[in-house]
C-alpha cells in the first residue's frame, strides 16, 4: 500500500517533469545532441591520441566508450538536472511539493526520472551503435556495465542536487557546472586516456567522481583482464563512496526554496 503510493507519486512527478523536458528545447538539445555531438567531434582525434603501437585500436575503443557514456552522464543527467532542480526551486515548485505527501527523496528522484531515462536510453543506443557500426564487442560483462551506468546516473543526480546549493539561478548553472564538467572531461578519461597523464596526476584522476564509474563501464563492455582482479570492486567502492558523499551533501545543504 505504502509502496504503491510512493510509486504513484514518483510516476506523477516523473511524468510532469518529462512534459517539462519535452517543452524545453535547450534542455532537450543538451540531453540528446550534446553527448552525440561531443563524441562525433572528438572521434577523429581519438586514434591519434591513443598513440602508437598495436594497442592503438584498443585504446581508441576504450576512449570512445568512456567519452560516449561519460558525456551522456555529464550532460543528460548532471547538467540538465542542475538546471531543472534550480528552476523548480526558484519557481517554488519544490517548496509547494513539500507541503504535500511526497517525501524529500521522492521529490528529488521524481524530478530526476526523465533525465535518468534519457541517459539510459542513450547508453543503450550507444552500445547498439558501437557494436553494429563500429564493430565493438557486445558487452562482455553486462552486469558491470549496468552497475556502472546505474551508479553513474545516481551519482550525477546527487551531484546535480548538491550543485544547486551554489547555483542561484538557471542562468548561473552554466557557470557552476563548469568545474565538474571540465575536471571530468580532462581527468576521467573522456578526452584522453588516463594512462597518458604523468604519474602523480594520473593517480589523482583515478579518484575523481566519474573515473570509477567509467572504469566499471569499460570493464563491463570491453572486458579484458585487469592486472588486479579486485579492480572492479575497488571502482565499485569508489563510485559508491562518491555517491554517499553527494547524498550526504544534499541532505545537509540542499535548499528547498529561493534565498530570502
Amino acid at each position, binding site marked *: 500500500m505504502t509502496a504503491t503510493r510512493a510509486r504513484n507519486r514518483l510516476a506523477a*512527478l516523473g511524468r510532469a517533469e518529462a512534459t517539462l523536458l519535452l517543452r524545453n528545447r535547450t534542455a532537450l538539445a543538451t540531453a540528446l545532441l550534446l553527448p552525440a555531438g561531443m563524441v562525433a567531434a572528438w572521434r577523429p582525434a581519438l586514434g591519434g591520441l591513443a598513440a602508437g603501437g598495436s594497442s592503438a585500436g584498443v585504446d581508441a575503443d576504450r576512449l570512445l566508450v568512456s567519452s560516449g557514456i561519460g558525456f551522456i552522464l555529464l550532460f543528460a543527467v548532471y547538467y540538465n538536472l542542475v538546471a531543472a532542480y534550480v528552476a523548480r526551486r526558484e519557481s517554488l515548485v*519544490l517548496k509547494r511539493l513539500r*507541503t504535500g505527501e*511526497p517525501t524529500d527523496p521522492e521529490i528529488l528522484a521524481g524530478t530526476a526520472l526523465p533525465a535518468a531515462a534519457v541517459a539510459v536510453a542513450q547508453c543503450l543506443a550507444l552500445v547498439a551503435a558501437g557494436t553494429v557500426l563500429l564493430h565493438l564487442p557486445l558487452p562482455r560483462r553486462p552486469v558491470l556495465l549496468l552497475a556502472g551506468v546505474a551508479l553513474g546516473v545516481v551519482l550525477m543526480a546527487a551531484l546535480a542536487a548538491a550543485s544547486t546549493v551554489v547555483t542561484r539561478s538557471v542562468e548561473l548553472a552554466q557557470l557552476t557546472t563548469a568545474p565538474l564538467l571540465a575536471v571530468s572531461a580532462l581527468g576521467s578519461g573522456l578526452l584522453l586516456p588516463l594512462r597518458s597523464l604523468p604519474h602523480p596526476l594520473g593517480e589523482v584522476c583515478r579518484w575523481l567522481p566519474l573515473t570509477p564509474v567509467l572504469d566499471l563501464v569499460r570493464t563491463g563492455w570491453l572486458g579484458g583482464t585487469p592486472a588486479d582482479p579486485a579492480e572492479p570492486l575497488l571502482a565499485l567502492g569508489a563510485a559508491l563512496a562518491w555517491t554517499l558523499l553527494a547524498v550526504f551533501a544534499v541532505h545537509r545543504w540542499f535548499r*528547498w526554496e529561493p534565498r530570502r
Partner: protein
Amino acid sequence: MDSAEKVIEAVGVRRRYGDGFEAVRGVSFEVARGELFALLGTNGAGKTSVMELLEGLARPSGGAVRVLGLDPHGERARVRPRTGVMLQEGGFAPDLTVAQTVRMWAGCVSGARPGHEVLEQLGLARRGGVRVGQLSGGERRRLDLALALLGRPEALFLDEPTTGLDTQGRYDTWELLRQLRAAGTTVLLTTHYLEEAEALADRLAVLHRGRVVACGTTAEVTGARPARIGFGLPTGWHLGDLPPLPELAVLAHEERGGRVLLHTDRLQFTLSVLLRWADERTVALDRLEARTASLEEAFLAIAGTADAGTADGAGR
C-alpha cells in the same frame, strides 16, 4: 471550545532565521475542529512564518506546534494526507497546463478527488488546456486552492488565499470557504484584508511584530473599541451649538474637512440625543453615519499601541 477537539495548536512558538532575526516571538493560539480561524497582521508581522511552522516546512526554534495532534514536521507522513496547503505564492511550473498540474498533484495525493470536479468547483473547468504561466494572477490563486482541496483535507492552511483576486473572485472564494466550514473542514487562513477576517472568521488573532496582540471573536477584539458617528453641519451651525459633549456620552471628537466625528461607547444613546437635537432645530445632518467599531479601527489602534512599546500587553 474547551471540550472541542483542537485541530491546530501553537504554544509559545518562536522562529528565528539563520541571520538571527526572530520573526515569531512566542505565539500561542488554537483552532478547534470545524472552526475558521484568521491570522491577521500587516506585512512582516510574522503570519507566513507561523504558517510555515504549522505546515511543517520548518521546525520552530522554540515552543511547539501540533496539527491533528501530531508534529507536522517530525510526523510529516502521517499529517500530510489529512491537510491541504496553499502557500502565499504559487509554486507551479509555468510550462505545464492546468490539467497537467492537477494530474501531477492528484498522483501525489491519497484518495484524490477527480481533477475536473475540483477545477469546476473553482471555476477553472474551461482552462484545463492553458499553461499555468498564461493564467491571470486570480486564476493561479484559484488553481492553488484547487490543489489544496484535491485530497479532501480535514485541515486547510491558506496563506493569503484572496490576494490578487478581483472582488467577484474574492466573494466566490469566501462562499467556498463557508461551504467548506459548513462541511466540517477546519480552516486557518492569513489575510491582511480586515473585512475578510470580519466576514469569515469564527475567531482571529492579530499578529504584530511576531506576537499575538489580540485574540478572540471579531466582537471580542472590536468590542472594547468606541463606536463612531460622523456628520456634516449646515452652514451657520457649529460644534458648540450641540448639547455639551459629555452629556452626549462622547469620549472624543474631531472636526475634519467640515465633518464632525464623535467617538462614543454608548452609540444608541448618543445618536438618540443628537437626532432629537437636530429634529427640534430642523437641522439636516449631512451624510450622517453611525457604526460600531470595525476590526480595522481595532487593528489600527492595537498596532499603534503595540508600536508605542506595549507589545506584550494586549493578548487575551
